[in-house]
Structure formats: structure tokens, C-alpha cells
């Protein structure tokens, strides 16, 4: 190889290494922040329902602190290269999605949409080719929420909150219906979707126990889901 050509190539490779280092620094920062959030969210399993709003209140600021890192990160990514570097922060972003969606559910019992999630994380639409929130990462985050809620259904009952499993059951079933509408390939998303049925089974069993023993309050007209035997 011509020495100049060789130097040119090594130089280009060096620049990619530099870029990678810079991205890594930001991802490390983001991970630190998501870990703080997750640390607080762990406490939902031991927090009685009346103390839940205060807990949610305390976790909100950590959720909004991601924005700062994400806006630095986007400055580093060259035009059109979102997908080239994305793998480096995929896990962090999925954790962030999980946190945002779970907090929204615990506050308002509703599903945070993809656009709303992106907004909370401070991901701007105009960044498209440099940084975005892809559907797959959002969906992966949702599945983690379901995993977490199946635990919460159990732990809520332990703490004497018998309504929680029923609310969770309704929410999770809706999500499951949504996921069933997707044409999933034999990939990671598919495997995680397949695992949802175990979460649903776990939640159903809790609902079954609570309903049969009449621990839950009298159902509204359509509140109580059918119990699978």
C-alpha cells in the first residue's frame, strides 16, 4: 500500500476511535443517571400506596436529568450516523424508556406514548439522523415495564394493596393486545414478547387469589377481568 494511503486510512480509523471514546464518556454519564432512577424505583415494591405519590415525586427530577447528557451526546454524532453508534447506548436508552413509562403508569395509570417518552428524555425530532428513539427501543422498554409490574402485583398484595393487581392486569392485557398486532420476526423483541405470557400468568394468579378471597373491593361494572382457571 502506498505510505500516504496507509497513513490516511490509519488517520481515519484513529478519528473513529476518538469519536467512540467521546460517546462512551457520555453513555457512562447517562448510565450513572439511569442507575439513580432505577435505585429509587426499586422502592416501589416496598412502598405502601399512600406513600407512592411522594416516591414518584422524588424520582421525577432524576428522569429529567437525562436531557442534559442526551443533548451533549447528539452534538458528537456525525450526520446520518445514528445507527452506526446507536448500539453503544441502546441499553441505557431502554432503561430510560422503562423508567419514564413506569413512572407515568404509577402516576396516571396511562401508557406514555413514544413521542411523549422522547420528549421527557429530551430527544428532539429534528435530530433524526443523529439521535432518535426507535420503535424497537420503546417496545423493549415497555416489556421491561411489564416484567416489573408483574413483580409489583405480588408485592402490592403483600403490603395489603389488593386493588393494584387488578389495575396492573388491565393495563398489561392492553399492552399484550397491542404487541399481538405486530409482525414480529424471530429476534430479540420476539423472544421478549414471548416471555410476556409468563408475566401475565403471574399477574392473573394474583388477581385470582385476591378475587376468590374477596380481598379486592367490589368490582365496578367492567372492572374485574375474567379469571382464567
Amino acid at each position, binding site marked *: *500500500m502506498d505510505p500516504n494511503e496507509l497513513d490516511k486510512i490509519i488517520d481515519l480509523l484513529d478519528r473513529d476511535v476518538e469519536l467512540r471514546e467521546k460517546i462512551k464518556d457520555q453513555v457512562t454519564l447517562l448510565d450513572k443517571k439511569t442507575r439513580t432512577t432505577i435505585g429509587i424505583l426499586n422502592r416501589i415494591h416496598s412502598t405502601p400506596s399512600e406513600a407512592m405519590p411522594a416516591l414518584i415525586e422524588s424520582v421525577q427530577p432524576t428522569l429529567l436529568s437525562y436531557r442534559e447528557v442526551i443533548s451533549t451526546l447528539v452534538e458528537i454524532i456525525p450526520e446520518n*450516523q445514528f*445507527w452506526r453508534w446507536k448500539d453503544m447506548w441502546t441499553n441505557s436508552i431502554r432503561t430510560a424508556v422503562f423508567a419514564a413509562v413506569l413512572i407515568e403508569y404509577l402516576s396516571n395509570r396511562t*401508557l406514555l406514548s413514544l413521542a411523549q417518552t422522547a420528549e421527557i428524555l429530551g430527544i428532539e425530532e429534528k435530530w433524526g*439522523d443523529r439521535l432518535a428513539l426507535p420503535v*424497537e427501543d420503546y417496545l423493549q422498554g415497555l416489556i421491561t415495564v411489564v416484567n416489573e409490574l408483574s413483580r409489583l402485583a405480588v408485592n402490592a398484595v403483600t403490603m395489603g394493596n389488593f386493588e393494584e393487581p387488578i389495575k396492573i392486569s388491565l393495563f398489561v392485557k392492553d399492552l399484550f393486545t397491542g404487541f399481538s398486532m*405486530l409482525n414480529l420476526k424471530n429476534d430479540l423483541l420476539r423472544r421478549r414478547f414471548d416471555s410476556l405470557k409468563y408475566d401475565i400468568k403471574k399477574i392473573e394468579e394474583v388477581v385470582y387469589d385476591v378475587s376468590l378471597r374477596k380481598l379486592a373491593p367490589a368490582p365496578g361494572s367492567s372492572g374485574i377481568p375474567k379469571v382464567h382457571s
Partner: protein
Amino acid sequence: MSTFTLDPHHVSIDIFDNFRADLDDYNDRRERLIKASRDITNLSKKTIFLLHRIAQGSHDPNEDSHVLAKKAAQEGYAKLREIQTLYSHLRPELGGDKFWRYQRQVSPGLQEYIEALSFAHYLDHGTLITFDEVQHTLMDAQGVFFPLTISDYVLGLSDLTGELMRFAISGIARRGGRKKAQDVCTFVRGCKADFERMTPYIRELKKKQSVTSQSLEKIEDAAYTIMVRTSEYDLSPEMLDDIVTQSISSYIGTGRQPSRRGRGDRMSDDEDEDI
């Protein structure tokens, strides 16, 4: 007892329709690109066979290997243009940020293409094709239709060494074949040294470097054998070529049967190398 009312649908299912469209688009495009990449791999392999076939020439040992190499390169270029056309059709599939999203799907075909292209280039010029020259074959008046990455460029070239080894060894019995083997040996040694500097940057390169080492060793062994045998005769390389040529042509004169068998042997050797 407290009662709670729940809206039976806290989740708008409609949004999943959009997700489905998004995932379907991704999966369909991915499939199309994998297929295109496979087609390109196929065509590239055919081009490489074509280059070997023409560069080796017919049974006439008097054919000038230099002329044959040039001829092979020209025909190779024509075949490679078919691949370039396939790539130009991929432009809409890979625009904007899409290229990097599907880079892993198109990379295998691209490396195979670079292997074929760089082989033709070597036969034509005796040099390594540059990054810019490769990129140049993947653009037209409207600009680049397929962006070249450094890693694909280097990995494609790394495969070239295997082809050159085959080229050198299968041509070694021809007029000028020994000189050619020496040239290839020097060239491959240079490539290996250059690529060594890049191994820390490109993950897959390390494995390919060890294959290159094996190829290099085979050529070196062949060159060694030639050196030892030549030294037993106090004659110039040209005169040695003449002696070999004479005995081969007298052999061909006695009938075609044996020569055909000879060719078959050579091809089976090639296949062994392919593993």
C-alpha cells in the same frame, strides 16, 4: 370500602398500528438488502473465477502472462459493472441514515465485491486499489450511491491475498510463472505488514490476517522450492522456461487426454484452498 373506576382502555391500541408499519418496513427492507447482498456475493465469486480462468490462459505455455492478466482484468471489469449497476439500484434503500442501519446486511456482499475488484485491479496494474478508487466505482454523476467504509475496504482487500496465492501457485509452471510468484509473494507480504497496523481498529481483521499468513506461507514455500531446484541447473530462468515448454508441447502433441486430466487436478487443488 373504596371503589375505583377504571377506563377499560388506558392504552390506545392504535399506536401499535404505526409500530407494525415501522417494523414491517424495517424487516422488508432488511430482507431485500440481504438478498441483494447475496446476489452481489454470487456475481463477485463468478468474477473471481473468471479472472483466474483467463489469467491462467489455455494450454499454450507460450502465451504472455502479462497480456493474459490485462485481458482478464478487462473482462473482469465488464462483469463488475453488472455489480455496480445492482449497487446503483440500492440508492433509495440506503439514503440518509439508512446506510448505517443496514450496514451489517450489505457488508458481506461489499467485501466480496472489493475482493473481485481489487483482484482485477492487481492483474491490470500490479498494485493495490486505493480507497478512493473503490469508492469511485460506486458513484455516478449524481454522487455516491453506496458509501464505502474503511473496514469493508480493508476486509475486502484482506481476502484478496488468498486469491493472489491461488493465482501465483496455479501459474507457477507457466513461462514467467516463477517470476510472477515472486512478485505476488512480495506484494502479499507488503499487504500483510500494512494490515497489521490496522488490526487493533478492525475487529474481524485479526482472523483474516491469520488466513493471509497461511496464504503467504504457501507462496513462500513454492518460491523456496523453485529457488532450490533452479540452483541445481546453471541456466538462466528463460532457458529453464524453454526446457519446460518444450517437454510440455511434445506431451500435448501426443494427445489431449493427459492434458485434460492435468487440468482437472489443478481445479480440485483450487477447491481445497477454498475451505
